[in-house]
């Protein structure tokens, strides 16, 4: 078994054991920390489909997480708290937003793509800040979690925890299948040489836009989970700094490498947590660490485990 797969298996096993481990150490704090890390992992995995496999550096991915979180929060507040309603609405909104902004963004490339996705992210951020009925700038506390198809699964932390873990595993497998599929092959080829791919008869635009929609939907689902986990929604979820965090996770984990984004997300969350127990000013350490890691490592964490390129 290859290094990254083995490491991932160990990590999934550890994650699955967390609620049990928490009884001995860390308690509910550990559980909610790990839930947060897994949710970020889901969002980062979806961003890696764009950055790592399609070569589309989106700097506005947190907007989708925000869309998922706000849809959830608003629907719970407005008395439609069941996932059977929340999920379709979230997916519909994320798809519509991705189609429109993706189609415009894909007219540009390179740096301009980075910046226009950022601009769309900012639009979402300011829209959320203006929703004064739902907390405006300050955000909104949710008094209950969503109904999981009437099962009450989310009523307990454990139920929510395993839902998130299951989602993470499904998303991991799904994205791996997508990357290896016909569609994924076209996407990966277009990252290397779009002109050649066009001349083979593929509309690169259509494939990239589809990838943008898929990634957006997954990130929005992460947002749904996030709103339930934190029981709080706030525009900060969609701030550009959060989009930057997601990029950090993808790159430090290892762009386009198997499980890279997941490793990245877990590592960053644990690192932040570890450093902040050392000192209140942990950012003084984290910032330079980030600089040094980018300057002196290549291929991120997954690259260390598995030097060969994953295709």
């Amino acid at each position: 078994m290859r290094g990254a797969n083995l490491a991932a298996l160990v990590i999934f096993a550890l994650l699955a054991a967390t609620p049990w481990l928490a009884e001995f150490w860390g308690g509910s704090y550990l559980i909610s920390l790990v839930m947060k890390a897994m949710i970020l992992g889901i969002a980062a995995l979806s961003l890696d489909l764009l950055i790592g496999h399609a070569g589309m550096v989106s700097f506005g991915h947190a907007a989708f997480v925000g869309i998922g979180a706000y849809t959830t929060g608003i629907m719970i507040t407005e008395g439609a708290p069941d996932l059977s309603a929340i999920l379709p609405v979230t997916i519909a909104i994320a798809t519509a937003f991705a189609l429109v902004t993706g189609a415009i963004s894909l007219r540009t490339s390179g740096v301009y793509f980075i910046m226009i996705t950022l601009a769309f992210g900012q639009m979402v951020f300011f829209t959320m800040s203006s929703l004064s009925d739902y907390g405006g700038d300050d955000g909104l506390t949710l008094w209950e979690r969503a109904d999981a198809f009437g099962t009450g699964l989310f009523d307990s932390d454990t139920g929510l925890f395993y839902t998130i873990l299951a989602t993470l595993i499904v998303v991991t497998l799904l994205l791996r299948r997508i990357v290896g599929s016909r569609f994924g092959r076209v996407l990966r080829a277009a990252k290397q040489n779009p002109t050649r791919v066009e001349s083979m008869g593929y509309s690169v635009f259509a494939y990239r836009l589809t990838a943008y929609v898929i990634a957006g939907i997954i990130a929005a689902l992460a947002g749904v989970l996030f709103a339930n986990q934190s029981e709080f929604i706030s525009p900060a979820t969609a701030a550009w700094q959060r989009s930057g965090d997601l990029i950090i996770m993808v790159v430090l984990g290892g762009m386009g490498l198997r499980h890279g984004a997941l490793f990245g997300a877990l590592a960053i969350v644990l690192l932040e947590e570890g450093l902040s127990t050392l000192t209140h000013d942990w950012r003084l350490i984290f910032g330079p660490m980030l600089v040094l890691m980018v300057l002196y490592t290549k291929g991120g964490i997954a690259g260390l485990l598995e030097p060969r390129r994953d295709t």
Partner: protein
Amino acid sequence: MLSLVNLDKHFGALHVTDNVSLDLRPGECHALIGPNGAGKTTLIHQISGTLQPDSGQILFNGSDITALPPHRRAQAGLGRTFQITSILPEFTVLENVALAVQARRGSSFRFLRTVAKNRQINNRALECLALFTLTDRADRPASALSHGEKRLLELAIAIAGEPEALLLDEPMAGMGKEESATLTETLLTLKRDYPILLVEHDMDAVFALADRVSVLVYGQIVATGSPDEVRANPQARAAYLGDEAC
């Protein structure tokens, strides 16, 4: 097969394509020659769809493709190679060709089944590689091929797309004398199956392959005819052949 009708293109004050008409008949190899700066590359871009002509029409198999984007032209059956080697460097040689095959084997908006083990696609890709003696390179990354092998891979990719006509943009570029001769042999066999519009500087290759030759100078076609006719045409000689072929 493929006809350009009164194509016209300006870049600012520069008239890069000046009322060009040209056609490629079924079964023939039509060579387009001309000195550097004659507008060959611009013309190729218009045929493949990366540039739009200001006026004029491009017909392919009887339908007007003037307004179609590059990928639609490829779908219509226009295969091409590039002047500067254009392959997918991170893919294996087999994958390069398999991607082209895949374009002809149903929709690629399929998300869940692993394509790497698709027998149908891989077998067809291997057949294409065999045509160009690349079979034993199949599992290498394309970036590891020699220059000559990359040029062959380009051809294999073009053929794998099951084209009805081929647009070859200086296939001999950057090749040695011997390599060019071998490639000319290969193209001679290809010619039996595909009409070819060939843009080339290597006159040996042009006269070995072409049934007809058109000479492009300052954006205008100054002569079209059999290789011998063009060789004898004073305008063409003055413009181009004078210093190279005779």
